[in-house]
């Protein structure tokens, strides 16, 4: 049984894992991730890859919205920038896979800085709506710069090649997406052990106080936009390799809303929340498909599925905000606490 925090040094307080059991469990999780592709079928591998790239993007948005307090509805736009950069580099120059991903991240980052510029003057909801503009502008760019992006028809992306192996199946892509995801999630977790991450949190909690404490708002807000859209860009790049086709319609406003919902459902301002949120939001539609399949609807099933999905999606946002504003991460924390305190109750 543990009560309260038994930390004895700042280093212990900052550690990524508080205890040895936690480290052990993480090892188990890693093993499970390694074993997973050998046991899962094609469908589950497909879902795992999708979850993986959604985790990257959700983590990125959580850095911006959950940790820095800047609400953005432009995540899909940044993903689009990353995906198109990767697609163009791959199709035209055939440059190496990892370099393309990095370039996608960097282009998205530049886009993020550009969109973040108004954030220096605009706050809160005005900013949220201003970021919607990013989506329209990138959509326009993709659709109208036809010479480079292929216009409305979009682009077909050849499979990625890494060390001579063609990454053309979910099984092979999994071995790329999973490590990148783990690396980026760890990067995000580590960020909040540094000065930059701490500054983000201070800005979220009260920006004027942060300014009084000597944190320059402008560079840090822009940095938050930059890092967050870098994550989106990498996720977008993976998206391009995963679906092998990018069109202007691939990155609608609804997708930005999806990621914001994942951040909320998972838990704003927690790394584990980004992971839970992305898993939950990606898998619930699949679960719905199963449930609707069981119901005796006959041919109506496919007709009903899409609206029901939309309604469940909206209800989840509303219900989580009303009943569990800290999201799944908070539920998880309570479960852990239950085990810590057992046999006593909280």
């Amino acid at each position, binding site marked *: 049984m543990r009560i309260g925090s038994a930390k004895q040094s700042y280093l212990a307080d900052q550690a990524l894992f508080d205890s040895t059991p936690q480290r052990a469990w993480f090892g188990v999780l890693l093993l499970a991730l390694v074993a997973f592709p050998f046991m899962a079928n094609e469908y589950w591998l497909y879902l795992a890859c999708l979850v993986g790239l959604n985790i990257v993007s959700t983590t990125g948005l959580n850095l911006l919205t959950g940790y820095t307090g800047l609400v953005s509805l432009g995540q899909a736009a940044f993903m689009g920038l990353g995906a198109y950069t990767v697609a163009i580099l791959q199709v035209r120059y055939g440059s190496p896979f990892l370099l393309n991903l990095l370039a996608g991240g960097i282009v998205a980052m530049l886009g993020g800085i550009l969109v973040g510029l108004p954030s220096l003057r605009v706050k809160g909801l005005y900013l949220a709506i201003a970021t919607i503009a990013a989506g329209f502008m990138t959509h326009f760019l993709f659709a109208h710069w036809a010479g480079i992006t292929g216009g409305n028809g979009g682009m077909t992306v050849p499979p990625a090649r890494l060390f001579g192996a063609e990454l053309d199946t979910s099984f092979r892509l999994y071995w790329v997406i999973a490590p990148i995801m783990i690396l980026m999630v760890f990067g995000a977790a580590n960020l909040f052990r540094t000065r930059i991450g701490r500054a983000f949190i201070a800005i979220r909690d009260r920006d004027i106080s942060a300014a009084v404490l000597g944190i320059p708002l402008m560079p840090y807000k822009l940095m938050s936009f930059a890092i967050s859209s870098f994550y989106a860009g990498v996720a977008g790049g993976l998206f391009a390799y995963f679906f092998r086709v990018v069109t202007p319609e691939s990155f609608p406003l609804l997708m930005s809303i999806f990621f914001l919902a994942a951040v909320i459902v998972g838990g704003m301002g927690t790394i584990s929340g980004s992971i839970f949120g992305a898993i939950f939001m990606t898998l619930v539609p699949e679960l719905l498909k199963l449930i609707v399949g069981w119901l005796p609807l006959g041919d109506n099933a496919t007709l009903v599925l899409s609206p029901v999905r939309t309604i469940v999606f909206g209800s989840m946002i509303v219900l989580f*905000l009303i009943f569990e504003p800290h999201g799944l991460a908070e539920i998880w924390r309570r479960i852990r606490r239950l085990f810590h305190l057992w046999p006593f109750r909280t």
Partner: protein
Amino acid sequence: MNVDWLFFFEISLAGLGTGGLYALTGLAFVIIYKATRVVNLAIGDMLMIGAYLFFAFSAGMGLPLWIAIPAALLSMGAIGALVERTIIRPMLGESPISSFMVTVGLSSILVGLVELIWTADQRRLPDFMPTKPIQIGEAFLAPKTFYGFWVAVVLIVIVLLVFRFWRGGVALRATASDQGAAYSMGINVPRVFSLSWSLAAVIAGVAGIVVGAIGGISSSMGIFGLSVLVVVIFGGLDSVLGALVGGLLIGLIEAWTGTYLGGEYKLLATFSLLVLILLIRPYGLFGTHDIERL
């Protein structure tokens, strides 16, 4: 370049026609924002619900117009109050971002409901406006746009008068300017919240019926709401005058860019304008500039 002035005049008139509807919907948005400080992203979807209710009452149940329209609007009022009571009231005291996200969820629920009940197909509302083309000077104007504009103008005037003279309107203004003070003067603030959502829903309903009559109805009608967001940000979230001026201006700009550059430039132009305005005046043209202190 040789400008065809008559043509220009005609599209400008059409633009003003749409602009009137933007202004009207913007007004519904501003009422909610002023009273409850909720940025309602679902305004376009509320408008869509209004149009579909009218569709259900008139085409579905075959009721005559003079029953179908009031019935649709009354249901809208009830829906507005219901939404406020069930999902907005519990968010009282939460951060503005949370209540904003709740309306994002609401928007998704409304779209899903419409698709579930009426499917996503495009439908036509029954014609209820005169169909004779309108001539202003030498310019011709689609009658629906013309009458739609006047419906918007009349309703805006009514709302402004109501705000000015009716007790409920005064309570609404009082709540908007200072909630605490309004409470202590005996104004039932929660009821004002319900009232503002009902009123806004009814106004959105009217706008929806007119928009639906002009362009048909479908589950993607909520896109209209995006232009309205630009309008209110442009004019200032809490300014009635801003919504009116912004509505007409955005209507004009959309009509011009839509005709001279092509339909896909419309949203691009308005959103670019939005970003520009935000950089110059972050609180919109006529919005209140909050001064923050520590």
